């Protein structure tokens, strides 16, 4: 276990380094942040002072090494736009994105898993076909359009739910959370549902496919031959085998919810990390972009590790230490 953790950390380190190089080169190719940062009316002296202040007068490779030196001391650099440490800026937005992602994933699992199970167990029923057809809509309708429709229906027409923002928040574990207040919860509902739609369909179809793969297996037939009740066969024999692919997808999708919920956050003006990264890209705020992408790499590495650990619990045939 320990060796596999260390191995993964090294892998993560390597990926993060590669990521910084790519971002550094990428952002400098797209445009010069100086053009955006500095007031066009500023004179040459002012201009030179700002450029020197951000270290942008150095050649790119030198800037990169200065950045790496800071990184070794835990300093990701200050945001060009906000003038504050980039990492702090991101961590400040983390709770908003995190609660949105968890809520969306929760909805997706609570709806997707039972419906998928039902559609898999009774594939010929009309209700199953309706579920499966509905799931096609779920993953083919574009997120932004569904988001707009949700706002149109539930906020504009019915006036049940607020259109944007997080609502009042409460402090908990050093972050500001919406789900702790009832009004914040109302604000969370629409964006979470919008994000969940695609994931629900994904989990639903995966579950159904899994059920149909497990059901014809001999061990299910043998479980019936033992005289087990149908409920136990489904809840234990089918579900436990099913969990292996579902956990994989849920884990990876959780990562993508955190990293790529940009569209939904923009539509509902949800002040999460997605909104921050889009703004930063627009302003070529390199420190924030780099810090954000590095965090995402770390997130996926950690998630993959958690998924792999889950395998060892779910599937006794998998042992992490067996092979180097």
């Amino acid at each position, binding site marked *: 276990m320990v060796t596999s953790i260390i191995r993964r950390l090294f892998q993560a380190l390597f990926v993060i380094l590669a990521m910084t190089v790519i971002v550094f080169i990428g952002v400098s190719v797209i445009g010069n942040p100086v053009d955006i940062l500095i007031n066009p009316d500023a004179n040459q002296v002012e201009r030179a002072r700002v450029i020197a202040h951000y270290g942008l007068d150095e050649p790119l490779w030198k800037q990169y090494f200065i950045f790496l030196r800071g990184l070794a001391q835990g300093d990701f650099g200050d945001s060009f736009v906000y003038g504050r440490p980039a990492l702090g800026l991101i961590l400040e937005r983390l709770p908003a994105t995190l609660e949105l992602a968890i809520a969306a994933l929760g909805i997706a699992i609570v709806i997707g898993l039972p419906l998928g199970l039902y559609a898999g167990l009774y594939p010929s029923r009309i209700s199953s076909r309706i579920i499966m057809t509905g799931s096609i809509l779920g993953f083919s309708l574009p997120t932004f359009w569904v988001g707009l429709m949700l706002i149109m229906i539930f906020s504009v027409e019915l006036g049940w739910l607020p259109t944007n923002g997080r609502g009042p928040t409460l402090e908990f574990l050093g972050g500001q959370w919406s789900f702790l207040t009832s009004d914040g919860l109302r604000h969370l509902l629409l964006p979470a549902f919008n994000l969940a739609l695609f994931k629900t369909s994904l989990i639903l179809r995966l579950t159904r496919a899994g059920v149909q793969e497990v059901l*014809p*297996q*001999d*061990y299910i*037939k*043998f*479980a*019936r*031959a*033992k*005289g*087990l*009740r149908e409920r*136990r066969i489904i809840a*234990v*024999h089918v579900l*436990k*085998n099913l969990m*292996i692919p579902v956990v994989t997808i849920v884990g990876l999708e959780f990562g993508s919810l955190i990293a790529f919920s940009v569209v939904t956050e923009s539509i509902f003006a949800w002040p999460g990390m997605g909104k921050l990264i889009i703004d930063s890209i627009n302003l070529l705020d390199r420190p924030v972009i780099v810090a954000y992408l590095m965090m995402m790499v770390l997130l996926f590495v950690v998630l993959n590790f958690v998924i792999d650990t889950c395998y060892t619990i*779910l*599937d*006794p*045939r998998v042992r992490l230490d067996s092979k180097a």
Partner: protein
Amino acid sequence: MTSLLSVNNLVTEFGGGKGASGLRAVNDVSFKVERGRVLGLVGESGSGKSVTGFSVMRLLERPGRIASGQIIFDGVDLARLSNEEMRQIRGKRIAMVFQDPMMTLNPVLTIETQMVEAVRAHDQVSKTTARQRARDALGLVGIPNPEERLSSYPHQFSGGMRQRVVIAIALLHKPELIIADEPTTALDVTIQSQIISEFQKLTEESGTAVIWITHDLAIVSRLADDIAVMYAGRLVESGPVSSVLTDPKHPYTAGLIASVPSRNRRGVPLRQIPGMTPAITMLPRGCSFRTRCDRATDECLVIPPLFPQQERFVRCFHPVMKAMT
């Protein structure tokens, strides 16, 4: 005394229903199993022998269904029981052992879980009691360290050991009948032999009747009391093993026996049955074996009935009169 199991004119179809008839995998099959006796159900792949076994267990998978016939078990027609009534019989009074021990046990559950749940599906006992019974059952089928092995997963056992576990599960409730569907086909020959002896010993001790489904005549001659030969979904010959194997009446049975290597016929080419088993979708008219049979005449264009011959039955107009050797 009535038979333990009496299958009468069983028809199992795939598809069809509501007046339309589907594919008949089992066609008008009747046989009896007496208490404590072993019936060898023999046939090639696709002859319907496994489907017969699953029909008795009521474990057919869709679109398979019992279209007509009776399955009288200890005076009760299993074909007419509700699902819950059937569940109470499965595993308790009729158990089943499957062909491939690699596939029969759930790979993600411990042996303990799979045995304890089998005990508690029928008997309301505590987990501790169920566990003790599971452990004793493992010991009975010759698994060393049953206490430790209970917490193992199936992949930690060899094929032979897994089949022992499966047999232990089948014997948990001391069933009156065990349906063994080619339980040794997937095993090494040496292991096969051990498992068969073990099985024979255990069922004899507990007086359990067995339907042993196989294509291996050698196994049948070794452990069965009676034999029923199936061809293309129909029973073609049945009777006591000793007389059927030494003096087969149906040309198909005779052909099967002649195609088994024997040390008395060393150097002589093995005799084969010409042609192939017809697909169930395009059976020839009349006797299904007609096209492969050298004794067939125009009379065989009609399906022959089962002719009684002393204590035996044979479905042929032109039975073989004396052993062909």
